[in-house]
């Protein structure tokens, strides 16, 4: 029985805005194993690894390496302890060669110059040792994604990493490259390295990992040998609900289609299809949920429908109008609203007042302008009304919005997007990172909006939310619809989990029912 090479004991981390990222997490890894760390987005895995790699510090708890307590205060500190991190977003300088990227920070020297021959040799040696095939003289910008990742791994190994943390490594790889990666990982294991494999792709975890730790809502909810668990078991633990949320909701009476999507395909900046041939309808007076682990195409749907992103193939029609050449304002003029996933980047401008944040979608309209100037009285009245209706806790409409709590900021965003009585509302992760009170309020408003006749697309990685609020829902996996449930009351969370994690997939006929008007 191998010893624990790494133990993270009783780790708690609370961010300044009050969000509890990790709560009393215990995480231990045995020497020479490939250990999977799984959990949905927001479950706490990235925070835990940030603490391990020295990017964040925990509030409580300690880290033990080979039984000795250590303090990690920076990435270089972690590297010294033999902990290497392969980030999801590559930490490479594209205009430099492979060898230069490999040795940066630890450059071999000849007098005061870099010894390039030695650098190349170092690269070749470590590549040979671990059986990677790379050209030290190639420029990183010319290399495919799979090779770039190999360089990242080698970078860590060159610096003496005994423990390698791989953050969602297969997210950007083709199936071919994934197989290659797994062969490398097995070899690394043979040579005594320990690997922490962060992922939510259960098939891959079953294929390559020895043990698994499951995080949910900031806590560790399970630790076991991978062989002892089926994919269903893992999925249950990952996506189970701690508390069943019941939402007071009348039965929906959806009418005609407001949004028609046919064969929508989107290619991302890596050249990969992030949406593949997606088709569905959303109807008036309906909450259409889109469930799925983040990164499976949901955001692309939200972005293409609202105009933030252009699509390469397919048809998007809103109320019968093809929006291909439409600007964002054109789309908004079709009475489409968007509660964005990243509220701080897109949803608000932090330094300006609540008032200025609320009127950003309507300030130009004639009803708010009199003789070229803004009708301050009307605007103030409307903004005050929004603040009152949406219970925004603030000191007044002129207060800079960044002073509000996360929940109140989201209420302002929702106030803006819902108060325009939209015909179609695209709501993406509406309650992520906000307090309970605001969460309840926002969900209630979503239902009210639907009752007023709006077609609502609800994208959420929160199972509670998407199951309880949606009338119908689809599940996105790997850029495609993997399931369609016309009545969300007829599905259990375990079932949903299986579709979310790619364990099951419906037939094309069943998915085809998502299209209302043939």
């Amino acid at each position, binding site marked *: 029985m191998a010893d624990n090479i790494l133990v993270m004991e009783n780790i708690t981390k609370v961010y300044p805005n009050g969000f509890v990222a990790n709560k009393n997490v215990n995480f231990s890894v045995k020497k020479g194993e490939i250990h999977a760390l799984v959990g949905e987005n927001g479950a706490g895995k990235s925070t835990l690894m940030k603490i391990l790699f020295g990017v964040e510090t925990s509030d409580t708890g300690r880290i033990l390496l080979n039984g000795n307590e250590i303090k990690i205060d920076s990435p270089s500190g972690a590297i010294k302890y033999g902990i290497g991190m392969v980030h999801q977003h590559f930490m490479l300088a594209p205009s430099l060669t492979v060898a230069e990227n490999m040795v940066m920070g630890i450059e071999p020297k000849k007098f005061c110059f870099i010894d390039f021959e030695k650098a190349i040799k170092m690269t070749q040696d470590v590549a040979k040792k671990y059986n990677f095939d790379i050209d030290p003289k190639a420029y990183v910008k010319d290399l495919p994604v799979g090779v770039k990742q190999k360089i990242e791994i080698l970078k860590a190994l060159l610096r003496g990493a005994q423990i390698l943390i791989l953050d969602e490594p297969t997210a950007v790889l083709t199936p071919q490259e994934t197989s290659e990666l797994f062969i490398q990982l097995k070899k690394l294991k043979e040579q005594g390295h320990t690997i922490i494999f962060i992922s939510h792709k259960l098939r891959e975890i079953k294929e390559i990992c020895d043990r698994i730790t499951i995080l949910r809502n900031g806590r560790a909810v399970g630790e076991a040998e991978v062989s002892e668990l089926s994919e269903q078991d893992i999925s249950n633990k990952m996506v189970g609900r701690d508390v069943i949320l019941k939402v007071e909701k009348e039965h929906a009476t959806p009418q005609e289609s407001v949004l028609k999507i046919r064969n929508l395909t989107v290619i991302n900046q890596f050249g990969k299809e992030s949406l593949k041939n997606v088709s569905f309808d959303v109807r008036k007076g309906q909450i259409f949920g889109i469930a799925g682990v983040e990164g499976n195409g949901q955001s692309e749907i939200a972005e293409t429908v609202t105009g933030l992103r252009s699509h390469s193939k397919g048809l998007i029609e809103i109320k019968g109008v093809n929006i291909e050449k439409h600007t964002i304002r054109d789309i908004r003029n079709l009475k489409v609203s*968007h509660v*964005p996933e990243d509220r701080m980047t897109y949803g608000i401008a932090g330094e300006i007042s609540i008032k200025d944040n609320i009127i950003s979608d309507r300030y130009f309209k004639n009803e708010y302008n009199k003789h070229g100037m803004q009708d301050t009285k009307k605007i103030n009245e409307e903004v005050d009304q929004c603040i009152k209706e949406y219970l925004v806790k603030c000191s007044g409409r002129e207060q800079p919005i960044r002073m509000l709590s996360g929940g109140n900021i989201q209420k302002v965003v929702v106030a803006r997007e819902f108060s325009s009585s939209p015909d179609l509302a695209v709501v993406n992760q509406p309650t992520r990172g906000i307090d309970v009170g605001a969460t309840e309020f926002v969900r209630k408003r979503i239902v009210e909006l639907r009752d007023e006749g709006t077609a609502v697309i609800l994208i959420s990685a929160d199972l509670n939310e998407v199951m309880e609020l949606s009338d119908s829902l689809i599940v996105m996996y790997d850029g495609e619809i993997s399931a369609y449930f016309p009545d969300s009351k007829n599905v259990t969370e375990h079932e949903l989990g299986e579709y979310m994690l790619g364990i099951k997939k419906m037939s094309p006929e069943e998915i085809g029912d998502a299209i209302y008007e043939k």
Partner: protein
Amino acid sequence: MKNKQVLTSKTIENRFEVFRVVVAIAIAIAVALLLIFFTSKQPFEALYWFLLGPLKSLRNFGNVVQLFIPLTFAGLSIAVMFQCNQFNMAAEGAFFLGGLGAAIVAVKMTLPMGVHPVVAILVGAVLGAIVCAIPGIFKVKWGANEVVSSLMLNYIMLFLGTYVLQYVLLDPSAGYPASNQFPSTATLSVIIPKTGIHAGIILVAFLVVLVYLFMYKTKWGYAIRITGQNEKFAKYSGVGVGSTIILSQLVGGALAGAGGATQVLGMYTRFSWTSLPGYGFDGIIISILAKNNPAYVPLAAFFLAYLRIGADIMSRKTDIAPEVVAIVQALIILLVAAKMFLDKYKHRLIVKNSQEQLLQKEGA
């Protein structure tokens, strides 16, 4: 129960910002005063003239107001452009070209009194708008960095101007490189006798109000502001970001061009600028002090004008060069624009205040 006045976080921040600016100015002036003290043989006299000189005579004070006019134009121009988060320095070239354009209208066109200067200033404004829009268009269309392109454009405008001066406007009888004399129909007359303050003051006062209203009370100003605050947010809300950026540059350029025109017609009888006048860069300090708010620009412009004239007077009466003001200006930029200046102190204040707020709540 004694209710101690607990301030909202916003009030603390506002008050702190004012405090920070005051401290920065105080440090800058203190440094200047020290320099004067240690390099002058008549330190107290020098300080006296520096700080109080502008108040000693009507003429002196008039000089302050005279300088206040182009500085306000420049401050307004930069304020609008910076509010859109564009580091466009072409205000300098716009100012210059505006002056040149006004000179051409003054010398080459015959128009009745009252109409002549209006046309000249309008022409100046249009030329200025075009100059400043160019880097904006390059940025929007091709993503070209506006700092470098605007600096280059300033020089191109300068050479264009000196060419026009030398080959089109030159009055060979003048004795120095200058255009023909402006006809009296074109110049801006002095409106307050014995002070030298010309009609441009009325125009600039009017523009301060207009620009303030434009930035804070119209939909175009609103679009400029939110684009400057968070371009992604503006785009997501449906604002046409590219056209808004160009609009901000057009307006800023027009203000700079009008400023150049006003300056030439109000302070000179011939066009004789052979180098860039420098107001464009002064506008940057003014806008920083005014936090890019048109309403505060006159205050900052007056402050800078007072300092400069004070230094001028000091240099005439004593042995100190007026350029000491440049040192003050530089320090002010460095300190006021430094986000971390007194940052730790600000945090302490805010923490202390929230603790007091908490105590109050618990006590109530």
